[in-house]
């Protein structure tokens, strides 16, 4: 050892400068900190992880249903198991995935960022909502897997009150409880949108995603309690013999259907309105152009929410509803299509002559518009009482609502996740894999559900697994499509998780998009904004504007 080494060793070495990020992900890294967090961004992530889990479970049930339908004689599962499988699929997908899908993940994460707030109005209530959701959903899933429920997700009486031999009471209890979670989130969003907007963030400067979530939250707040009471009445009738719907005593089972659909039709708009909000963001960002008809899109969200409350009777055209009621509900169902169409035309006009970039989110958006139009137009067919007589309770209906619930909601969810992923995680995912998945989704989805339109039109009823052999080729095609669709779901799960560690770092605004959420670093700091911003710009002020006619 030479003297100079000693000198070096004794030199005072300055401590290495570690660049500690102070974003919301790194603010406190312990696992416990996630379970007691009141940060809306972290709660959004908690929801994202949990609903992804439920989506996988619901998809497995769907896969087993499609497996059973490959053969016409229903040999693979017994009738009982088949009934339990499609009930499991329906209940999980509706209440534990679709309803919370976009609002509780992206909405939770983005709402305060988009309106320039530090958090939601009631952060602790937000966390409580997640705990109620987790408790109720895990309980219900356990009940449905362990005991089994065979009523379908609609729980129609008197099947559910008198004849079903499954664990109906426990499942109904779980559904009532998960409703409280919906109500709390909806309440939080309504109040936040009203009261926590930054200075200068007027109603007509709100991003359209916020408008979509606001309309959704109004529905959640006003419709969910009616489901709660319908389920309570069902519960006490089955459990304690407090007859309300019991036909033996002159009760009216159709009354249950009215109460049920008063919630369950508006809840379809809960699934699709946030998706429409995502679309408005994607279409402008990737056409790099100011949105066409901002106010029309904003008000059409409220229009859908309002009119959507007066269409529920179209589920009962052939269940003992009077023809006059049928006529009214048919008319209202046609009217509710108008604001949806307004949105689609406005998006088309926004894309027109834009600087279109076909990145992954935009591919999802384009696929979305196509699928939504098909789902919407077939909805109009079902809304006409005469045609509904032919296809009522057939696979035509199944295909229609999957075009809306999967084609619109799930595609928008994936498109939104891909769009805001760099903001949420600070990382970019693999663009080629993203594009492949978006295309695969479109192909797989159509392969699965287009044949079901044909099957339904030819007369295949829903909820039966024994069918005439003539229907087998189309059923096999549909099941094969489900395999493609499964790949389109698995790919993003793999490359998105991979990107968490190995993805390129994304800057604050990788898409050069407009909006307050893109002005903060990615991932955003714990309290979103160092100082609350003052908004003095119009929404979507992209350089390209509507071309003069």
């Amino acid at each position, binding site marked *: 050892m030479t003297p100079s080494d000693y000198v070096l060793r004794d030199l005072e070495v300055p401590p290495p400068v570690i660049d500690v990020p102070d974003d919301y992900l790194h603010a406190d890294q312990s696992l416990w900190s996630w379970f007691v967090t009141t940060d809306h961004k972290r709660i959004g992530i908690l929801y994202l992880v949990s609903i992804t889990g439920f989506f996988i479970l619901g998809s497995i049930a769907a896969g087993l249903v499609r497996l059973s339908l490959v053969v016409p004689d229903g040999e693979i599962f017994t009738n009982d198991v088949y009934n339990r499988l499609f009930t499991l699929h329906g209940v999980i997908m509706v209440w534990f995935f679709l309803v919370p899908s976009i609002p509780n993940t992206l909405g939770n994460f983005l709402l305060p960022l988009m309106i320039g707030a530090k958090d939601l109005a009631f952060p602790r209530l937000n966390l409580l909502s997640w705990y109620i959701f987790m408790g109720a959903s895990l309980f219900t899933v356990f009940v449905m897997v362990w005991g089994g429920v065979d009523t379908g997700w609609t729980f129609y009486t008197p099947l559910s009150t008198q004849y079903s031999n499954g664990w109906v009471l426990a499942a109904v209890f779980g559904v009532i409880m998960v409703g409280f979670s919906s109500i709390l989130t909806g309440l939080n969003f*309504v*109040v936040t949108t009203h*009261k926590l907007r930054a200075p200068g963030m007027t109603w007509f400067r709100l991003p359209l995603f916020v408008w979509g979530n606001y309309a959704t939250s109004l529905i959640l*707040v006003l419709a*969910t309690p*009616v489901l*709660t009471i319908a389920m309570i009445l069902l519960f006490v009738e089955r459990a304690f013999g407090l007859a309300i719907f*019991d036909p033996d005593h002159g009760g*009216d089972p159709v009354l249950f259907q009215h109460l049920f659909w008063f919630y369950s039709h508006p809840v379809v708009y809960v699934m699709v309105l946030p998706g429409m909000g995502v679309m408005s963001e994607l279409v402008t960002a990737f056409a790099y152009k100011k949105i066409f008809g901002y106010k029309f899109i904003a008000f059409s969200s409220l229009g859908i929410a309002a009119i959507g409350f007066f269409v529920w009777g179209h589920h009962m055209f052939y269940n003992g509803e009077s023809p006059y009621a049928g006529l009214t509900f048919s008319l209202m169902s046609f009217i509710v299509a108008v604001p949806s169409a307004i949105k689609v035309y406005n998006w088309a006009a926004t894309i027109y002559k834009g600087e279109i970039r076909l990145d992954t989110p935009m591919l999802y958006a384009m696929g979305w518009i196509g699928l939504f139009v098909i789902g919407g137009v077939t909805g109009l067919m079902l809304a006409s009482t005469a045609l509904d007589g032919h296809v009522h309770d057939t696979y035509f209906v199944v295909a229609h609502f999957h075009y809306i619930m999967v084609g619109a909601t799930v595609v928008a969810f994936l498109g939104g996740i891909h769009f805001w992923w760099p903001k949420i995680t600070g990382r970019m995912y693999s663009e080629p894999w993203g594009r492949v998945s978006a295309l695969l989704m479109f192909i797989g989805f159509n392969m699965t559900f287009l044949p079901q339109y044909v099957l339904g039109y030819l007369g295949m009823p829903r909820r039966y697994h024994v069918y005439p052999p003539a229907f087998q080729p189309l059923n096999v095609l549909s099941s094969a499509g489900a395999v493609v669709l499964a790949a389109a779901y698995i790919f993003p799960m793999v490359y998105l998780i991979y990107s968490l560690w190995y993805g390129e770092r994304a800057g604050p605004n990788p898409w050069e998009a407009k909006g307050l959420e893109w002005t903060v670093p990615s991932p955003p700091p714990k309290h979103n904004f160092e100082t609350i911003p003052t908004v003095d710009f119009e929404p979507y002020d992209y350089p390209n504007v509507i071309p003069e006619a």
Partner: protein
Amino acid sequence: MSTTTVGIKLEEQFESEQQQRETAKLGMWTFLATELLLFSGMFISALVIRTLHPDSVTAVALHLKFWIGATNTAVLILSSFCMSVAIESSRLGLQRIMVRAMLLTAALGVLFMCLKGYEYYRDYVEHMTPFLHWRRYELVGDPASRLFTDLYFIITGLHAIHLTIGIGLMLVMSWLASRAGFLQKHQNRIEIVGLYWHFIDLIWMIVFPTLYLLNR
């Protein structure tokens, strides 16, 4: 009696006291809207059953204890008055009056529950409990009357659950609010709890005519 300054402690997500007050109030009103919709589902069911079986419903309505229901209505109106006194004195910083008014409100809530319990007992004695399968039902020759009797128990039962929650809230709040410095930090919580209490009373104002008065 000391008049203290009243106010609220600012939570981190708010910019001003006024914003926090308005937010809390709107939150409670939104929640109360869900409560109204919850009860509406039962009111509409009551009207449907009434339309389907008008005679059976009248037969049941004649068995309901009108005077107990009417007394209970008066009790709740009085309790709402006490709650208003509590809210007004909380704004003025009159802590002791406020706490006593809240305790009186809770006591009137308990009185309502006692009368309600006695009414249920009378129903039991009169064989108006069709869901108890071991006990003969008074209107056994009129099966459709069961529907309205059952609904009567469900509606009043659910209202009683809400009122019990209200009494619990009132007791906890008056305990918390009796501490020194409460009104300087959390004055608006009294108003929020008050909104809930008034609304549960209001629900009863719809329950009473829907069940007891129509077709009587």
